[in-house]
């Protein structure tokens, strides 16, 4: 609907159809697609003259008899279920119950060419050997029936049936109508009315009004212990120590609270916690995933970039621009330039079907993945749905999809990987300036380089010998495959270093292609069905003006468009994400989908207020978080209250704080922290980096890849994230699956988690470390119990708890050593709700 003329025509058409009413609504429809027209007399006028003449040829009586005896019963029996005016759901927009319908055809063109059975689609689908095209779909018609149909078409397809086909309108999406949807409208200050209430924040006042309307009352504020523990977990993802809790409990004033907030926001651990939230959305991983899984040895740089961005409170609009077009931004210095390049890793770290044989298919899939992540992460829109057809629910025509695709297809994505058995699409990587950022990769010594080169030369020689003997064996024999894998692996390792053994400074990212071009629309998304070429551009429903892309891919223009205060979605989607991580549920409960199939905001006013405020505050994440954790709503207790629960079980209006199990990373980090075993410094690089290019999941011989890594006690955000092989300690507790864009993790409680907490050596080891401290540092059982509570829960035990604990210790130690007893005791505390839950 790019041309205004076309649009006005369509509008006219809408008006025309109004008086005639609307035919039965199909079950599920895109609200932005024009409803089907009723049967209207005007329809005949629209018929081309030739068709009209055909219609005038009245069939002879004999022809009618043939039709009635041989053709119509078959059509009724076999076809009408899906292809008749009154079908519940008309398939392929094709109706066969009128003469007009059968002649004009559906999505795939005219059904019959009178007189030419060979050219008639109807005969073709009846006789085809491809079962996916065959009609009727389940059972081939008998040869006899097919012969009748051929004969009938040969006769000129005489058809006595009157009536006008239900004209099935093509999915012409009405963009202007689409713009009326709430999320495509700009948040507006004038629509926000905040009642007066002294001393309350604006957020609280909006919530209070909304609660009144629903008859909800808030529960009491959280007690200081719960509150301060909540704050530590939420802001830095580490448990508060007993001393930290006590310091606040002694003086639980708003000022003291604000001081703790500031302190935590300034902690380097803040970025590790909140960066991880963004990595969920950015489907961060260090391998291609999919059928054959190859390493991304340089992905970790993007991880570190994100963590640093959160620690530096990088304005979100800049954060967006860097991730979409950092390579095109002007840099102050090398460090800045490095950051900008690494940021574009966002577009490169997606999963890839590296074993795809068709190059174009691979490219289109790669671009599709980019459109998917960019549109959901920043805009909360599932634009990738429009790859094969107009979006079924949102006002996004396929053309818009390919307008975006043109931008990404004019961009070169640099992700690495090697050519190897099943590795078909290696790409270059981005070379970084030397900015002094450490990457943890040690230079190879001269002898190491020589050893590897020698090994490589030997392998190549062996392979050549094998090839000379038998080309076939070199590809197919176990030995041949082994040689190829080993060769590729060493090549992959060496590709990380300069000739002298210095590690190369490489990154994943994007850059402009030499030539830019506009993409055709691919019919049903299939590479062999290119259609009309569309100019690069943005989603029409979210913009009044298409960009003028003068040179380059248009990525810079795209980034500016996304990161603009005029974009109705970017700020809303982001503040909703931040809200969700603090309150357990988004104001829009589908954080990656603000379209019509997403859920409506529980309070649009609140969402818009926050979005406007956020942009006004210079897109500052830390300011936003501070505002949110300072609200009364955030500081409520988790108390269950039946009346409120009945009215608002999801707690969408925050009548209390929702209790939840801790995130996977927090559980693991807290175990390590309590045991005094957490390495609090950031990891340098990643084990995947050290492994180099090659297969992420070993094929054939494990020995090639070394065993599992030694115990890694860094914070969980630094653990290697290999697709389909994420550490168990994370996946079991619902860490984000990096194959998906995860705005909102699920929060399950399953026996596999219990088994982990009961039996996993990692958990037992941390419990053992706690036991060792208790035994060494404290003399009596009651002291040890007290200390264990302080270490694990950050508080002293009650008298009753001391009693229960003493009883357990007495019972258990009757048959176990002291060390075993205290390990079992500590493990029980770790496995308990108080440790695992955030209250």
């Amino acid at each position: 609907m790019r041309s205004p003329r076309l649009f006005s025509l369509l509008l006219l058409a809408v008006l025309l159809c109004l008086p005639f009413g609307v035919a039965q609504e199909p079950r599920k429809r895109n609200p932005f697609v024009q409803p089907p027209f009723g049967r209207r007399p005007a329809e005949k006028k629209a018929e081309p003259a030739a068709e009209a003449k055909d219609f005038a040829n009245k069939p002879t009586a004999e022809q009618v008899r043939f039709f009635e005896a041989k053709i119509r019963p078959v059509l009724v029996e076999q076809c009408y279920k899906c292809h008749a005016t009154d079908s519940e759901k008309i398939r392929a927009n094709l109706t066969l119950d009128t003469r007009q319908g059968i002649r004009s055809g559906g999505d795939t063109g005219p059904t019959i060419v009178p007189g030419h059975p060979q050219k008639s689609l109807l005969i073709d689908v009846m006789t085809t050997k491809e079962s996916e095209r065959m009609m009727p779909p389940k059972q081939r018609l008998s040869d006899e029936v097919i012969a009748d149909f051929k004969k009938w078409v040969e006769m000129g397809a005489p058809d006595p049936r009157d009536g006008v086909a239900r004209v099935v309108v093509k999915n012409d999406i009405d963009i202007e109508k689409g713009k009326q949807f709430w999320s495509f409208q700009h948040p507006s200050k004038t629509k926000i009315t905040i009642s007066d209430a002294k001393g309350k924040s604006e957020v609280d006042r909006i919530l209070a009004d909304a609660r009144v309307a629903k008859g909800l009352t808030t529960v009491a504020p959280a007690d200081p212990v719960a509150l301060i523990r909540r704050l530590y977990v939420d802001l830095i993802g580490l448990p508060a120590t007993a001393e930290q809790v006590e310091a606040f409990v002694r003086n639980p004033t708003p000022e003291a609270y604000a001081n703790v907030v500031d302190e935590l926001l300034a902690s380097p651990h803040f970025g590790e916690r909140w960066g991880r939230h963004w990595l969920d959305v950015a489907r961060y991983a260090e391998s291609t995933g999919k059928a054959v899984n190859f390493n991304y040895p340089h992905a970790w740089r993007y991880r570190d970039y994100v963590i640093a961005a959160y620690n530096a409170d990088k304005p979100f609009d800049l954060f967006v621009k860097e991730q979409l077009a950092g390579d095109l931004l002007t840099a102050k210095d090398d460090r800045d330039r490095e950051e900008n390049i690494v940021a574009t890793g966002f577009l490169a770290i997606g999963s890839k079907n590296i074993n795809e044989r068709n190059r174009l298919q691979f490219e289109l899939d790669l671009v599709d993945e980019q459109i998917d992540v960019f549109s959901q992460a920043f805009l909360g829109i599932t634009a990738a749905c429009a790859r094969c057809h107009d979006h079924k629910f949102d006002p996004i025509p396929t053309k818009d999809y390919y307008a975006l695709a043109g931008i990404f297809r004019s961009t070169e994505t640099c992700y690495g990987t090697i050519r190897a058995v099943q590795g078909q699409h290696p790409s270059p990587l981005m070379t970084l300036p030397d900015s002094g950022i450490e990457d943890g990769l040690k230079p190879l010594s001269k002898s190491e380089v020589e050893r590897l080169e020698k090994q490589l030369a030997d392998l190549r020689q062996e392979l050549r010998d094998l090839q000379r003997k038998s080309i076939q064996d070199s590809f197919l024999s176990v030995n041949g495959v082994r040689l190829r894998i080993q060769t590729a692996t060493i090549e992959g390792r060496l590709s990380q270093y300069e000739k002298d053994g210095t590690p190369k400074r490489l990154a994943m990212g994007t850059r402009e292609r030499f030539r830019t071009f506009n993409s055709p629309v691919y019919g049903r998304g299939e590479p062999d069905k290119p259609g009309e070429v569309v100019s690069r551009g943005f989603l029409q429903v979210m913009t009044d003006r298409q960009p003028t892309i003068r040179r380059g891919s248009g990525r810079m223009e795209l980034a500016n468009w996304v990161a603009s205060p005029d974009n109705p979605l970017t700020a809303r989607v982001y503040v909703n994400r931040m809200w969700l991580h603090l309150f357990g549920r988004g104001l829009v409960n589908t954080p990656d989908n603000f379209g019509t199939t997403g859920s409506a905001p529980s309070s649009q006013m609140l969402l818009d207020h926050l979005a406007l405020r956020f942009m006004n505050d210079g897109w500052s994440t830390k300011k936003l978080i501070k505002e949110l954790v300072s609200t009364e709503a955030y500081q409520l207790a988790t108390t269950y209250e039946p009346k409120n629960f009945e009215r608002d079980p999801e707690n969408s209006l925050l009548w209390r704080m929702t209790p939840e199990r801790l995130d996977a990373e927090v559980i693991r980090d807290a175990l390590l922290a309590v045991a005094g075993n957490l390495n609090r410094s950031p990891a340098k690089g990643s084990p995947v980096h050290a492994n180099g290019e090659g297969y992420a999941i070993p094929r054939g011989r494990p020995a090639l890849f070394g065993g599992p890594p030694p115990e890694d006690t860094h914070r969980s955000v630094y653990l290697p994230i290999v697709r389909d092989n994420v550490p168990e300690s994370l996946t079991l507790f619902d860490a984000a699956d990096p194959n998906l864009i995860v705005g909102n993790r699920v929060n399950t409680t399953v026996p596999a988690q219990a088994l982990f907490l009961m039996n996993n050596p990692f958990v037992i080891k941390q419990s053992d470390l706690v036991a060792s401290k208790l035994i060494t540092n404290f003399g009596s059982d009651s002291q040890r119990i007290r200390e264990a509570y302080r270490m694990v829960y950050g508080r002293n035990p009650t008298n009753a708890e001391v009693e229960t604990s003493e009883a357990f210790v007495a019972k258990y130690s009757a048959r176990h050593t002291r060390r075993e007893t205290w390990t079992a005791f500590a493990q029980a505390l770790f496995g308990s709700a108080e440790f695992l839950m955030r209250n």
Partner: protein
Amino acid sequence: MFDRRQMLQTTGSGFGFLAFSALAHQAAAREAANPLAPKPPHFPAKAKRVIFLCMEGGPSHVDMFDHKPKLSSDDGKSYAGARGRVFGGKLLGSPWTFKKHGKSGIPMSELFPELARHADDLTMLNACYTDIPNHPQAFLQMHCGLFQFPRPSLGSWILYGLGTSNENLPGFVTISPPNNNGGPANYGSNFLPAIYQGTKIGGGGFGAYGGGGSGSVSNIKNPRQSTRDQRQQLDFMQELNKNSLQQTGHNPAVEGLIESYELAFRMQAELPKALDVSGETRKTLELYGIGSGGAAAGGRFGNAGGGPGGRRGGPDTFGRQCLMARRLIESGVRFVEVTRGGWDQHRNLKDDLAGNCESIDKPIAGLLADLKQRGLLKDTLVIWGGEFGRTPYAQGTDGRDHNSKGYTMWMAGGGTKAGFVHGKTDDYGHEAVEGKVHVHDWHATVLHLLGLDHEKLTYRHAGRDFRLTDVKGNVVKEIVA
């Protein structure tokens, strides 16, 4: 069946919290919402559970089940249909002779002397086809319907659709799945809730950063505590949890946690029991071919097909796995998959294929006989097949290439026709020509046999309803008894 009363009895006197009247109705409500609780199918159906014998690598149908006399008579002739690969291309008649078996006269090659006795129990799908003649894609597609996008696997969909009848065991178990060709995605739940994912037993346990890997079920056994010790510890822990619950009031997360510990505790006892075949009679063990070699090659849980060593392992390993499968479904597990790799005979066809078949022939025949004698075959769907078949033309002189255009899978029991052949490939067994069954059709049919309508078994994700069969799939009604 999981039963509240039983559970309270078995969980010990120190653990009566569920009896608290204040909690009783909430617990009941929770049970109603238990995602694993058995659910009625969409329509009545015979099959209640599935054993999928997954042959990773692409078994050569023209040497096993799809008899092609013309291929033998044209042996050595060049073949126009051979393309894509550089090597060979001459037609290769099967080195094995075929005979018709049973009343149904289903042809099978001499590679399956034992299975042949069960010809009248089988429904052959001789015209299967898939999209891509490449292991990773085809293997993923066989499990998840698509390979382009990550999707939940067949077993997860079935568990989601029907729930499971023994809560002390996982509802979907996969024995010795491969690490590559999509790895865990082949038994992953993807966007379905995590509870529906497959529980891996043994298999290519080596993953650089994966957990478990010890050749058994992850974390199923405590490395140091006895059951009694652990019960004591657990009682203490549950007391702590009970205190938390009393403080916050109704809290599904804590209640769920309490229950998950009890389930896990029972699972620790039940799962190894279900997998332990040592209590089976000698007769049963012999029936499955257990004890007749091969144990050393793969180990008890080992992936027999993982490497060259496993190829001629004899029937012991696979026999044990089949017996475990029977024990699992007998205990109420909904979907059990057993993977046997090593069917990728680009070369060494004569030796390797014979070895492979020997290692599965007796176990499968034993499984069918055993299921039958226990009255389980009528409502257990047994499926055999791999991600594609092999070409009628040779690679070199003693090998065959991947063939996605036509191959054989078969089913037995669970409401399928007994002694029935559906579909046909061309004269050489290269391309399916009649009664074609695409992977989507196969999925639709499996679901249908379980009483699930593949168009109705949907899950809402990212704003739309997803299905195992995407937008495709036709039930092969012809094979339904």
